[in-house]
Every structure is written in C-alpha cells, then in structure tokens.
C-alpha cells in the first residue's frame, strides 16, 4: 500500500512539474534584463534608444554598451565594454541618441526626474546594449519592468529600422549575485530555436520588383564582462523554401555578429548561398536557427537575434524581431562586474 501511495505521489509531482511552463524571453512583455542586439554609430548611421519603466515604482538599471566592432590589430570583435546607470521613475519613458547620450547635468528637469547621464558612443560603435535591473545597492533583482525599442537611422538614405529590445524575465529564484543564470531559475532561458521568415537574398520584391536583402545580427546570451570573456555559439541553420525543400548551413558567433543572409554560408559567391534566390528559386523561406549544444556544463550557447530587411537597393529598411521557440536546453551565464 505504501508503494501505491508513493507511486501516486510521484505521478502527482511529475504532473505538477510538467505543467510548469518555462519562462521564455519576450519582445512583447517587460523583463529584468533588456538586450538590444544591434546598436550602431558610424559616419552614416546612428541609433535612437528608448527605454521605459513599465511599473508603478522607481527602478534602477545597470547598462552595458558592448562594442563588437572588429579590432584592426586582431581582426576579432573588440568586446570593449562601457557601463552606466539609469534610474526611471514610475512609468517613466526615456530616450537618447546613442552618439550623443545624455549629458551629466540635466538640461531640462530636476535631478530626481533625470534618467542619465548616458555616455555618448565613439565614432565607430557596432555592438549591443544590455540593461539589468538592480536595487539601490546595485544588486541584480528580478523585477520585470523594462521595455525598450531601438531605431537605427541611416543619415544618408534616411531609412529607419526599428525593433523591440529583447526582455529576459527575472524569476523568483534570483540569488542577487553578479552571475546571472539564464536557466529558468534566476532568469528566463534563451530560446532553443530562433525562427526567421524572410525573403531569399536578391528575391524580387513583389511590389517594387527590386531585390530584397536581409541581414541578421546575433549576440550570445552568455558572456563574462568581469573577466572580459565574450560568449560564443555554433549555430545550425535549417532553411525551407516554398516547395518544402530543406537545406542547411552553420555559422560561428564570437561576441557579436552581423551578417547578410547569403554571406552566412558563402562569402565569395553569394548566388551559391542557400539563402540566395538564385539557389532556392522561391521568394520566401523559413529559417530555423538552433544553437548547437556541447558538453560544456558550466555555460550554454544560446543566442538572441534581430533581422533587418532592405528594399529598393538598400535605400529603405525595416527592423524585424525574430520568433522564438522553447527554452534552451543548456542554461546561459552572463557575469557582470561587481562594485569595488
């Protein structure tokens, strides 16, 4: 009888555990960690950042600009980090242009209502921005209050490409240390699969008839700012065209990557890429992107991404938030430096 009792207890626990839905990253709902995968400042582009407090009480956030621009010495992403803090009163929105930041002295309001200062970015910045909710003593806390948008402005073609910041939800198991575990206990897990619906590169736009191009920007979920160790991921791509034909490719991301679709698998001859219209023969495709798990038990290799779609000879563009499916099987780790 005791065996029966414990048997049913096990069944109950299994059912209860099975009904717990894993928290996942979202571009629709507020979170405790906000990731903007692409922020650009250069001679022709700039980025408008909007961050809002979606709750009715004051919040503090630590933010990190992480520069993924190629270091001319090493030909690798520089992964230089600039951090700053913002504070937002209840339901307060904030905005700044990345090249200008927000000045030290509030230009137009009392200090209590000023989110800044925010450092201006240098002449060449191509990287990401992460903002993490902390308490007044800079301890990370799970309080899902941040939403954000980034608009990349092309100063020459005048195109605007806007996307939502990706919100990672904080969970009740947050221990408040500076090693953020995206494992479904402290923070939501990064996605298991990223799904991109796209036009194949150089496919004729159905309305304009000019070629359409798509770029993807990836950032690894893991990273260690304390030890200046960027995350990395091996990504597997499955591409389906309108005839349900399937082709695959792979790509390695170290720190930050921004690539045209057809250069993922063929940088020399794009027309031979599986992401190219000449290869696929149909206008649109569905690409499923999966970070390859490995034997590393200390950190996962999840990624976050956005896409940009260009039309009319790249004179007009649109930002796209990709779709997410499920939680990554390996938890990711993002370590931030502590106060000292």
């Amino acid at each position, binding site marked *: *009888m005791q065996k029966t*009792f414990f048997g049913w*207890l096990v069944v*109950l626990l299994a*059912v209860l555990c099975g*009904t717990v839905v894993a928290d996942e990253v*979202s*571009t*629709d*709902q507020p979170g405790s960690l906000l990731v903007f995968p692409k922020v650009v400042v250069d001679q022709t582009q*700039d980025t408008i950042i*909007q961050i*809002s*407090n*979606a709750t009715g009480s004051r919040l503090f956030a630590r933010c990190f600009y992480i520069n993924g621009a190629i270091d001319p010495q090493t030909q690798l992403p520089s992964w230089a980090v600039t951090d700053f803090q913002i504070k937002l*009163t209840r*339901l*307060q*929105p*904030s*905005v700044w242009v990345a090249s200008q930041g927000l000045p030290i002295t509030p230009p137009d*309001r009392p200090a209590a*209502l000023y989110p800044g200062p925010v450092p201006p970015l240098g002449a060449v910045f191509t990287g990401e921005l992460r903002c993490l909710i902390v308490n007044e003593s800079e301890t990370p806390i799970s309080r899902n209050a941040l*939403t*954000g*948008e980034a*608009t990349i*402005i092309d*100063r*020459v073609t*005048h195109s*605007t490409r*806007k*996307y*939502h910041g990706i919100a990672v939800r904080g969970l009740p198991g947050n221990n408040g240390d500076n090693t953020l575990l995206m494992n479904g206990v402290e923070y939501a897990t990064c996605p298991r699969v990223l*799904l991109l*619906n796209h036009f194949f590169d150089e496919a004729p*736009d*159905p*309305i304009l008839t000019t070629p359409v191009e798509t770029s993807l920007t990836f950032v690894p979920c893991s990273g260690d700012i304390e030890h200046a160790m960027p995350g990395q991921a091996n990504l597997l791509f499955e591409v*389906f*065209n*309108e*005839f*349900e034909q399937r082709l695959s490719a792979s790509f390695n991301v170290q720190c930050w990557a921004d690539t045209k679709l057809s250069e993922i698998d063929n940088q020399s001859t794009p027309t031979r890429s599986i992401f190219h219209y000449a290869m696929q023969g*149909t*206008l*649109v495709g*569905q690409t499923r992107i999966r970070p390859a798990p490995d034997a590393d038990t200390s950190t996962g290799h999840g990624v976050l991404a956005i896409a940009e*779609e260009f*039309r*009319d000879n790249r*004179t*007009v563009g*649109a*930002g*796209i938030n990709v*779709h997410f*499916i*499920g939680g990554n099987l390996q938890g990711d780790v993002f370590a931030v430096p502590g106060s000292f």
Partner: protein
Amino acid sequence: MSTMTHKKWQRALSGAVLGLAVVTLAGSARAADVASDKPGAILIFPRIVVDTSGVLTNGVPTDTEIQITNASNSVISARCWWVNATSYCSNNPAIACTAEGEAEPGNARRCGAGSVCVPQWTEQDFRFTLTKRQPISFTAATGLPTFPLADSNAVGGQSNNNSDQTPSGVPAVNDNPFFGELKCVQVDPTDFAPAPGFNPSNNGGGDLTGHATIVSAPPVGLVDARKYNAIALESTTINDRDETLILGGDPGLAEYAGCPNVIQMAHFYDNASLSLRYVGGQPTANDVVTSRLTVVPCSENFLLQEADLGGATLQFLTFNEFEQRFSASTSFTCQKDLQLSNIDTRPFSTDNSKSVFNVAVQGTLTGQTRIRAVSSGDRANGILGVLEESYTGPAGVRTSAENLHFTGSRALSDRIVLSPELP
C-alpha cells in the same frame, strides 16, 4: 493505530493524492500567451492597406506584402478572413474615404457637402493548407490564386491541396482602396474544424507565424516600407472544435490565450522634432515625428457580421518624461486607425497641437502610453494593435512599424464566432 485503521488512512490518502492528480491533469491546459514573437493558433494582422492608385494615401500607391509560415513539422490548414473596414461616403457607397481626409482643411472632399464618411464592415473568407515548415507570401492586392505546391507534383508528393481536394488559394482583397485586417485560425486539415497546434515543440500552442510589410511606392521620391510581426494567440490545448473560439477568461473553458489587459506603447509625441539626417556630411533640417495607431477588437462575429462588430471604449493614460500623466479616451467598432494626436482632438491637423499626444502639450520628446479597453458585462473587449512611426524630413517620409507591448490578462473572455464552412 490498528493495522485496519492504518490501511484505511493510507487508502484515504492515496485516494486524495489520486484525486488531486486527476484534477491537476484535467486542469493542466498550458498557460497560453499572446505574442508577436511566437507561433500561435490564431494569427492577427491588425493593419492591411491596399490603395494602388493612392487616392486615400496622399497620392502614393500602397500595398501590403504578407508572409505566413507553418512553424510545425506537420501539414496544417488555416481558415482566414479579410476584414474590410474601409469607409465610404454616406451619399455614394462607391466612393471610399477617410474621416481624417474629409475633415482636413484644404483637402478636396471626396464625399461632397452634406455627406459624411461612414465606416463599413464586411468579411471575405478563404482557406489553405501548408505543408511541413512551408512559407508563403503574397500581396493583399493580388492574393495567391495558385499555391507553390498546387500541382501535387513535388518530389516528396507534398501538396497544398486541401484534404477535400479543393485547391488552396488566397483571394485578392475585395476592395481597392482597402483598409482592414487579416485573421487566420489554425484548423484540423481533415475537417477544417478549429484545432490546437500539432507540433509538440511548439507546446501544442499553434503553428502559424506571419509578417506584414506595408509598402508605399510613389512614382517619384522615397519608397517607404514598414514591417510588423503578426500577433499570435496560442492555443491552451483545450478545444471543443466548435465555431465559437473562446479567448481567455475561465481557465477551464479558455481555448486560446486571452487578449492582454493593458497595451503599452513607448512613442514619440506627435510633432517631436529630431536632428538626425545628413546630406553631404552636413545636418539637414529636422525630421518631424508622427505616429499612427491601429487597433482591432479581439471579439469578432463573422457569422452575424454587422450585427456584432466588436469594439470597445479605450482609456488612455500617457506619461511624459517628467512622469506627468494625462488621460484620454475614444471608442471604436471593428477597427480604429488614426494619428495619435487625433485620439483626443478632431480628425484634422489644425488642432493637433492641443492633443495630449502632441509635443506642444507634453514638452518632452517621448512618452509611454497605456491603453485599456473597457470590458462590458460579459465580454473582455480586449484589443490588439500596431503602431507606425513616421519621420518626415525634407527628402520625404520614412516609416517604421512596431508591435506593442502587452501586460496582464483578463478574467472575462473574448469570443470569435466563425462563419460556417460550407459543404
């Protein structure tokens, strides 16, 4: 404790645990989400625009490209509805109009004196079948009369023909100009009854994803394109397969995710001025930013149509960068599509500077606005929407579209009543 008493106690405890397990199992419908970044069983495109001659879009021919994808590894089918919310002149049902266009001083009125611009509401349905992982695209003005695998001659034998051997097809929208929405519901491919998702990797929540790109292409000048993700309502995996879809509310009855309690949008206040552009390396005149909000009701009745349009009173709270709060309200049926500054002022531009959504009133560039639809006695009256943000400069207009943020859920449910599948 005697052995007999002990056994009774154990039996009672086992029964209690078993009962709890059964109750848990019965109520174990998954928590469903409404999301623009996940697949779902109901797909909603709140804004579709077709005006290929540009009569209502400032002379700029405009059309909408739609992408729909099967995110599962199974064959799926969908039933869809073009919802036509184009307005027409009260004295001439052949002339399309917009309330804002008719009211704008200096515009040539399309409806003439004594006539008003009246919204209409009609729907046109269609259905299609997608093979495993298949993406399709089409423009709203042309539809997709022939699907990629219509001939059933693919190497693997895949076919877009429906299970009753009718061909899949998407008709062109039945109006031009057309302002409206597109709704698609995932159905069982064998009998076209509403169904939860097939793919366990999508948690059974549904397998449809989509995007819409509104493209404005003037004969001369800047092309403008803005893209948003379709909004997906996940299935709870409870589904009685009838033609009334229950969105949210009682967890024991809800078939799909409920619409959000509050919609949150971060935006520039209308007429905010930004210096962002260079020509020849020098800054040009500032861009002026304006935003356009489109909302659609979650409850819709495709069976009774005009007898039950859906809609709600909308309450707005807007917070500027100084944490100052203003409010406004408006009401709508079927679809509301208007510039932010026209939410609380009349539908023309000359009084926009008096709006709480205008930089002249707020004094800060950006704001956060929370939108709450007022529930009725038995209906949640949830809404969904998208925002378009236009930057107008010396060179022309550039627009980006964005999905809105969602917060919370409602105790009441919304209902979508489908028009019947004819034999």
